[in-house]
Every structure is written in C-alpha cells, then in structure tokens.
C-alpha cells in the first residue's frame, strides 16, 4: 500500500477527491475493449448486456446467449425485430452472419462444458477468495431467481464481474466474505467497478487499474477487504473523445 498518488498534479493535491465515477456505459466500454480478437463471451442480464454496444469493430468477438444463440449481434430495431430472436434479457436482437441456434441442453453444454472464454456477470458482492453472490439478497422479501448465473459462474474459463464498487448507502461490495447466499465459490477472476479494475488472485484482491483523480487510500476505504496493488497499475482516464482509456502510472 506504499505506492500512492505520486503523480498527482498540484490541483489534484488540493482537491484529492476530484473524480467522476465511471458510468455503466463506460464500465461496459472497458470490458468490451479488453477482450482479445476471437473471444467467445456470454453477457449476463443487467449491466453486462451493455457490453454488446461497445465491442470494438476491428475484432471478431462471438457472443453466446443462454437461450441458444451463438453469434448474436446488437439490439434489433424496426423491421428487424422478431420476437423469436431475443437475448437473455428478453430484448429483440439481430443475428450476425455465421450465427447458429440450438436447443437448451446444447446451449448450456456450451456454458457448463468449459467452451466459453469469458462470462460477464453482474454482482451483489464478491469476496477476496473469488466467491460471487448475485442471485439472492438476505432480505425477508427476497425471492430466488437463479437463471443461468450459477452455470456461467462455474463453467466459463474466466469470470468477469461488473458492478458498482459500493452499494447506494456506501457499503463495500468487495468483501472478506460474502454475506449474501453464494452463486458460486471461488470463481471470479476480475471485477470491473465504477472506480477500479481489480483482479482476484490466490492472495486476494489486487488493484490493476484505478480511476484518475481517485487516491488508493480512498479506494481502500471503499473496499471491504485488503487491497494489494499491482506493479503494473494503470490509471483509467477519459480521452479527448470521452472514452475511458488506460494510462501507465
């Protein structure tokens, strides 16, 4: 925890908390641009669905949907809308040339059988050992809804979680242990939040990238478990087009 804000300008030093959290679209942009060419990816319902809108045009990234589609395009509009072609969030989508459609056991064999490179899921909580909670809160009125989340969390080669860094009442969502019921144990590889990108390693959370203007101390306070810092730490800043990009520290 010794390497901190060494490159801050004097203006930032006077106002160290001057930062604008990433929007949901900006988080989706970062996730989309970190996939390598040829990656096969499942986007879970909720925030992960936004990733489809930001996939870089110069890479072929194959989207799989749990309802049997491989090679899914973006949202359908106008005459392209067919209510028999929908994504996991029940939104009408288009199919790319080369797409295929199958029935449910084959669709889930893709997910459970280790055939997906990445699964991107939303999250309520992630623990430092990689446990994920994203299906049931602890409230008395909570109603179970699992869907494909447990299959995706266990079956994909890498599990990425997208979520806000803290809850609406500022409670950390990155914790020593989840307090909500688990979706799967020890499965999360990387967490993209509105403040940072954090890898889950055998020794716990490791900060890979931090939002420009945010200090590591402040981020650590918003993180419920110990946060180590990668020796390859980068800063997330917005370029002239307003797109989030990485900058070496």
């Amino acid at each position: 925890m010794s390497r901190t804000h060494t490159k801050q300008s004097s203006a930032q030093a006077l106002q160290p908390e001057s930062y604008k959290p990433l929007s949901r679209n900006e988080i989706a942009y970062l996730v989309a641009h970190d996939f390598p060419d040829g990656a096969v990816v499942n986007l879970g319902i909720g925030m992960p669905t936004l990733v489809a809108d930001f996939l870089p045009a110069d890479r072929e990234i194959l989207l799989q949907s749990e309802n049997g589609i491989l090679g899914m395009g973006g949202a359908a509009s106008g005459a392209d809308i067919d209510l028999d072609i929908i994504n996991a969030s029940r939104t009408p989508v288009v199919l790319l040339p080369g797409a295929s459609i199958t029935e449910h056991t084959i669709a889930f064999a893709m997910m459970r059988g280790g055939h997906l490179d990445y699964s991107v899921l939303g999250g309520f909580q992630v623990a430092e050992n990689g446990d994920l909670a994203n299906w049931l809160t602890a409230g008395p009125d909570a109603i179970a809804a699992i869907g494909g989340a447990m299959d995706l969390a266990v079956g994909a080669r890498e599990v990425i979680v997208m979520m806000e860094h803290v809850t609406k009442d500022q409670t950390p969502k990155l914790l020593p242990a989840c307090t909500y019921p688990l979706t799967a144990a020890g499965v999360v590889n990387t967490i993209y939040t509105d403040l940072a990108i954090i890898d889950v390693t055998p020794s716990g959370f490791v900060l890979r990238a931090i939002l420009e203007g945010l200090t590591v101390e402040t981020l650590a306070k918003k993180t419920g478990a110990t946060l180590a810092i990668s020796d390859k730490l980068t800063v997330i800043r917005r370029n002239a087009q307003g797109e989030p990009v990485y900058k070496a520290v």
Partner: protein
Amino acid sequence: MIDKIKHSLEDAIAPLQDGASIMVSGFGEAGIPFELLRAVLDKGLRDLTIISNNAGTHEVGIAGLIKAKRVRKIVCSHPRPINSETFLAAYRAGEVELECMPQGTLAERLRAAGSGLGPFFTPTGYGTLVAEGKEQRVIDGKGYILEQPLHGDFALVRAHLGDRWGNLTYRWAARNFGPVMCMAAKHSIVQVNRVVALGDLPPEQVMTPGIFVQAVVAVGGER
C-alpha cells in the same frame, strides 16, 4: 396409420387431468405455447405443477393460470424476469409454491429424464444453497452435487412446423426448451404454426423426431 394431428386445442389437451405435472416450453415469451395454455385455463384444470424456465408474464400463459389459482407449484430457474408481477403477487400471498434451480441443471435434469439416465453429478450449485439436502462429492479435487432426472406427465410445446408423425421444426430461438421437454414428458402436446404433409420436412432438418411427440395441433400464424 400414424396420425398425431388433433383438430382442436380441446382434443389436443384432452388427456390432461387435475394435479398433473406439465412442462411448458419457452424462454421469455419466445416459444411459449400460449394457445395450449389458454385451453388448459378454459378446461378448468387445477392443482397443477408447472415446470418451465420462467413463471409467466403479464396475465397470459402460465401467469393466466397462476392468476386463476390453478397452479400449486412452479418449478423453474428464474421466476422474476420483467413483467412477472402475477407470479410475484401470488407467491407473496402464499398461493403458489416455488422450486428454483440453475437453468442448466433444469435443462440437464430434463435431458436425463428423456434419455433414460439416473441422477448425475454437476459442479453447478456446489457450495451454494442449491446443494442443501443433496448428495455431494469431491472428485479429483472438484466439488459436485447429485441432481435427479426431472420427469413430467405432459409437455406443452410451441413449434413452427409439424407433420402427422410428430416431426417438428422450430422458429429461431423459440426452440429453447421445446426439444428436451418433448423428450422428458410422458405425453407431449405440440402447437404448431402450420401442419405440413408427411415428407415435406427435409429429414436432416427435423429438430424433434416424431417419436418424442404424441399430439400436434395447428394454431395458425407465422409466429
């Protein structure tokens, strides 16, 4: 002569009885056999167990049966995607039971039932509430839970084209649970957009072979 074509929805669902367990195809609203479900409602059947991915939307289909208090229990993976208010209200009022499981486990339990398999080990749900009360085993360092085949009395399925032997095709992603539910149920009843003549479906394009189907009824429409 084999002729599985029924000439009305009432004829097609004639074998259904109160207390039946009924698999219902569909994901979201794609592949839901709305016309068959409406016929089940009109027939006045009650005390039903519905096995489906979701728990119905708006006040039609499965939700229509729930609203009319005909459903004793819902077995599904996700009972509250958008527009699921009918189920949520009935569940909170204690009018319907819920058994929720991972979607891949639902599909695989149906496949096991339709394929003559017994219970199977899966890592999905290991270390979670889903594992409670089930046999668990660590094999080569990986944890598994034992899941049972999921049988049902009937399947109500929406397909696209069907012939009198029960061969089926499906439109786009409306296929989803249709094929595996036809395999898993004792008696599968399929509504199709159009009945075609025997031989019209290219054999290599048949998605559900007729052996898994007991009744086919045309409802018209291309969707």
